[in-house]
């Protein structure tokens, strides 16, 4: 669906995207992650043709092309910078934005009604956008990005501004859209949600790739799939954790409680010896590493995000 190849984008003082390459397959949910200023928005804007790369190429699959040009009506976009015409009625705004992407107005109105109904705001369709709460405005913005049924949709922070129930609703809808054949590029900070719905993940920092692949691939290739949670009675000689080649990282999560991440070729026996040597162990258990931890860990090791 999309090939992003050796793309470079420079601004006056910053190399926002630095020789970045990735590929998005048709019908998948592809998550683009990174700290603030990592180059996500610049990458997204280049894909959406809002800005041009300085070098490299961005090519779309044939289903999005019309001759040698990108058919914008096949693309959907939920920008990070949200905004709607505050003084315009909801239904009118949705139909207008959909017709800009080539939809038939009557068809767009029908679909908009169905989507508003699903989000529980159909009865307010004639009201001005400004009368809606922030969360409901987010729903309208989300509908606007997919109402014209694009082949490829970029959803930048789709969960932002929603409560947990609506975050789940959005997750379900994104999965449904993917199952219906839509390709989705997702950028978000809600790691738990990304972990549940993304087929593949790309983490970037300073415009470069840090890690990529399926969640399982990433977990296996970064800090191991498990972590150890140890609680102690009394003092802990945590300096012992630093000097070991079997322990990659340790984090104190509460007084006396430590999370221990293993190195690539660790020995559990050696790790346990260190745990015991460090203090009086009260409890010990293993746990799966989640995306949030991978994200934090990756940036500790892969470089610091610039502001």
């Amino acid at each position: 669906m999309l090939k992003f190849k050796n793309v470079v984008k420079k601004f006056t003082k910053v190399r926002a995207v630095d020789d970045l390459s990735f590929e998005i397959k048709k019908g998948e949910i592809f998550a683009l992650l990174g700290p603030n200023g990592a180059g996500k928005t610049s990458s997204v804007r280049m894909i959406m043709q809002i800005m041009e790369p300085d070098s490299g190429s961005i090519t779309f699959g044939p289903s999005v092309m019309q001759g040698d040009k990108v058919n914008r009506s096949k693309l959907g976009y939920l920008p990070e910078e949200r905004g709607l015409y505050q003084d315009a009625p909801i239904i009118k705004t949705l139909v207008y934005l959909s017709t800009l992407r080539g939809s038939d107005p009557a068809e767009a109105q029908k679909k908009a009604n169905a989507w508003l109904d699903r989000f529980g705001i159909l009865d307010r369709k004639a009201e001005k956008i400004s009368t809606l709460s922030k969360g409901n405005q987010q729903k309208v913005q989300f509908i606007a990005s997919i109402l014209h049924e694009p082949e490829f949709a970029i959803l930048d922070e789709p969960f932002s501004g929603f409560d947990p129930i609506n975050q789940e609703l959005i997750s379900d809808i994104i999965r449904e859209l993917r199952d219906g054949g839509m390709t989705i590029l997702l950028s978000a900070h809600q790691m738990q949600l990304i972990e549940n719905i993304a087929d593949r993940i790309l983490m970037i920092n300073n415009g470069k790739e840090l890690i990529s692949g399926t969640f399982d691939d990433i977990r296996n290739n970064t800090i191991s799939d498990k972590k150890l949670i140890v609680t102690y009675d009394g003092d802990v000689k945590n300096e012992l954790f630093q000097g070991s080649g079997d322990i990659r990282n340790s984090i104190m999560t509460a007084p006396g409680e430590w999370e221990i991440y293993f190195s690539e070729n660790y020995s559990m026996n050696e790790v346990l010896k260190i745990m015991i040597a460090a203090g009086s162990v009260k409890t010990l258990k293993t746990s799966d590493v989640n995306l949030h931890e991978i994200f934090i860990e990756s940036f500790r090791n892969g470089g610091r995000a610039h502001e």
Partner: protein
Amino acid sequence: MNNQLKTVWNVTKWEYTRFFKWIDLIKGTVFFLAFGLIGGVIGFWVASDTITTPDIAVHEYGDFSSENFQSSQFTFSDRSEDAMDVLLEELEAGDLDGILTIVSTDSATIRMKGERGWLTGLRQHLREQRTDLKLQEFDIDASVFAAIEDGMVLHTEFDRGSESSSADKWLAGIAIFLILMAVFMGFAYQFTAITGEKQQRITEQVISAISPQTWIDGKILGITGIGLTYVVYYGGLGLIGMVALINFTGAPFGQALVLINPGLLILFLLLSILGILMINSFFAGIAATIDDPNTSQKSALMMIPLYPVLFAFVAIFNADSTAIQILAVFPLTSYAILPVRLVMTQVPWWEPVVALVLLAATAWLFRVWAGKIFATGMMMYGKEPSLREMVHWFRRA
């Protein structure tokens, strides 16, 4: 209709209906008429209460007699027998409006509580009485005096094929006024539309769907449409008012309409539409560079298109000066100045042709330039492009 034109039309309709609402216009007109009516009633009441026939006591007549002081505008009373103190008391009590003391045919004094509007009428009355007295004194016949006063009639002839009628001159004046109105409308709406979209962060969503040029084209057409609708609406209202006035006064309205040259009317319309399109393109380009309208220095640039309309009023005084001849074909000013030249003097056939071609080309160039500025300027949050950058984009256009 191809897709791009269809999208331009969609944006045009959106921008037009976003700002233009018949109901608001009608409400505005009703309010305007209601306030006009209220103002008129209050004004009439204030005037009728204020304007009364003043009571003037004549204390001394000088060389005049009391017979000279008969007037429908004033109630003069002969108080030459009364003491000044008595008259002053009556003036203080409000029983008198003034005390007139005439010393001679060349000097008189009026004593009042303060400045009054009827003083001009009193001066006129005294002047007339003095003239009559002097005519008698110098034994001059009234008809002789009237002949001296008549003066000389100066007839005007113009070195041109056909003279524009008064109706054409009125038409040119109205055209300039309506252009001025459309310029203000364009200024207000482009400014609100574009800076508002920028501040509401709508830009990125729309610009990912359609090209900046398509978007700006729709905006320019939509907002020009609003300006022209207002012009037609208020022009129509003015016309209705004029017909009502003419019917009321019994003037031949139909004959006045016949005097309007249809060729000039079409030319004025073309110049107005192209001029307004060019100005709205300029406004759109500048508005796209403004990040915060409350603090931006560039807001002042939006006033530039008002200058040509002001120059047009100067053109009325000497439509044949070299500067005005140049400005009549110069595309940034021709839409306002050429109509004045066309009705005030003889204009060669090629002048409107050149002016129209240059104006159309400049409107197109401004449209492309606005598109370039819009494409970059609308995505610049927190900073504005410098004038140097804007000139660079203009050269690229």
